[in-house]
């Protein structure tokens, strides 16, 4: 009943007391919003600038050759005649070979790591495989030049020639640097991407499906291959496209083992050239603006190609994750 005068009401210091409800001090929020918005816009501006610069700095050759640049077979800096076909050919062939080798191994590993290995072992092994993705391209090139190519020369190519030598793919002399060597190095480089993304997609497939299949008396392999895989199929294709996009743009490792020769040959054992490799090698040697424009135009072609493939990949992976969430 007595009025409680002992307890003094403690109030926060003046600066922190609640102010009136008027809008007065919204500026902090607005300023912050503007700052982050500007950063977001900077990204759009930078990307736009990139595309523009690629277009502006290839205008000379684009106007000179038009679309025929894409199927021109000659790359002659001396006579200023430039065609992209040898490089498109080399890029496509090495990437295709890389996929052919990397997909079975990558997918096999992903299936093992997602479906069969106990979780802790799977996590540890996946970590190691993902470390492979962190190895820089130039290191792969280093190992490619001094380890892989001699190995291919001593063991693999003789075996290939003995068994499949009748194919035009494996005819002719093997000097070490070649489309084949580049394809193999690329394959090693893209395996981690296939493993990593595919494993993620497989793990996202709900467990009900596995239980349903096993309860029907399916073996582990049948459960994985016939029931889990189909649900993950789109995402796995997405991972393959991602790996392809990566392979198309690879520069250093390729240029160190491909031979850097702008020719188109049916044999994989012959040297070749890719878009990324020729830009890397000749950019600093380019003596005229026209020459540089040709190289930048090649960059534009590569840019377009990778955007396209990446776009397809994202679409595939996105639709898979949406289905799994149902």
């Amino acid at each position: 009943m007595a009025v409680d005068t002992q307890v003094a009401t403690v109030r926060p210091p003046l600066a922190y007391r609640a102010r009136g409800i008027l809008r007065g001090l919204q500026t902090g929020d607005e300023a912050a919003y503007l700052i982050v918005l500007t950063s977001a816009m900077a990204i759009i501006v930078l990307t736009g600038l990139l595309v523009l610069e690629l277009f502006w700095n290839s205008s000379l050759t684009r106007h000179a050759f038009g679309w025929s640049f894409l199927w021109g077979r000659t790359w002659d800096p001396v006579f200023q005649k430039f065609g992209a076909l040898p490089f498109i050919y080399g890029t496509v062939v090495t990437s295709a070979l890389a996929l052919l080798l990397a997909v079975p191994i990558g997918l096999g590993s992903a299936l093992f790591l997602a479906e069969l290995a106990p979780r802790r072992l799977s996590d540890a092994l996946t970590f190691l495989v993902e470390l492979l993705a962190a190895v820089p391209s130039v290191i792969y090139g280093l190992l490619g030049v001094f380890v892989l190519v001699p190995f291919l020369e001593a063991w693999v190519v003789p075996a290939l020639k003995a068994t499949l030598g009748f194919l035009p793919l494996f005819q002719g002399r093997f000097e070490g640097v070649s489309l084949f060597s580049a394809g193999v190095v690329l394959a090693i480089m893209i395996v981690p991407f296939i493993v990593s993304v595919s494993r993620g997609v497989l793990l996202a497939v709900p467990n009900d499906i596995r239980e349903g299949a096993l309860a029907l008396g399916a073996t582990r392999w049948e459960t994985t291959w016939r029931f889990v895989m189909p649900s993950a199929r789109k995402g796995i294709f997405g991972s393959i496209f991602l790996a392809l996009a990566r392979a198309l743009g690879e520069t250093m490792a390729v240029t160190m083992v491909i031979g850097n020769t702008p020719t188109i040959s049916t044999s994989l054992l012959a040297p070749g050239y890719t878009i990324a490799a020729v830009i890397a090698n000749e950019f600093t040697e380019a003596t005229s603006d026209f020459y540089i424009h040709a190289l930048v135009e090649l960059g534009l072609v590569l840019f377009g190609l990778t955007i396209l493939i990446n776009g397809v990949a994202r679409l595939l992976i996105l639709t898979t994750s949406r289905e799994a969430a149902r």
Partner: protein
Amino acid sequence: MSGVSFRRRAVNAVMLGLMGLCTLLAVGVLLFILGFLFVKGASSLNWAFLTKLPKPVGESGGGMANAILGSFKVLALATAIGFPIGFLAGVYLSEYGHGPFPAVVRYVTDLLNGVPSIVMGVFAYTLVVLPMKHFSAIAGGLALGVMMIPIAVRSTEEFLRGVPRDLREAAMALGSRKWRSIASVVVPTAAQGILTAVMLDLARVAGETAPLLFTSFNNRFWSPGWNQPTATLPVMIFTYAISPYDDWHRQAWAAGFLLLASIFAINIAARFLVSRGFSHSH
């Protein structure tokens, strides 16, 4: 009880074995790479290598001190350019990120992420080297910096998204401004994740060579300031590896080992931080 057909069991066993073999192959390659680089490179990694400048062409000996410093400079610049932009854009996407414009930002960021590194080098060349009329650390830093942006955006958005909703609402309910709640509550909670993001981002671009080939180019001497062609470790590895000199090959191995060991160390440290971080905040 009759068994499942022999064929089905055989297929099962064979396929399981094959899959295990693939995994072994993948992991084996990694161990081989590490081991080989160590064997060939560690022995050449001596004090001279770390502190001396390259000798004239053809002479043996010397080191890569300028390249090591150059890499530091270029990477520092790249981080300073790329990470803040990426980070702030990540904050934008996670805190204000609904609607058509954020969707465009996300799409463009993904696009940027897919640009091949050599094309990024061409971009930096046209933007910086052409107007300046010479190679520089700035150009190299810009090329790598732009490459760092998309990764920073994605990591930041992910980590910020992971901060629980109640935490933000509690801050707002106390009468704090939105930016304050983000700065004082959301970001610090995700601070460890953001640090990890910087590290991983850095590790990703630390080994890039292609964008530097015609931006920071190369240099056999020290390159004071930011306006000169600058030696970097990856470019040196490339140059030495394709040369005809055995001594240069030896140095390329040493540099390769140094580069790979550094990148792995950053990666492992970042993962370690992440795993500790989760147990810490729960």
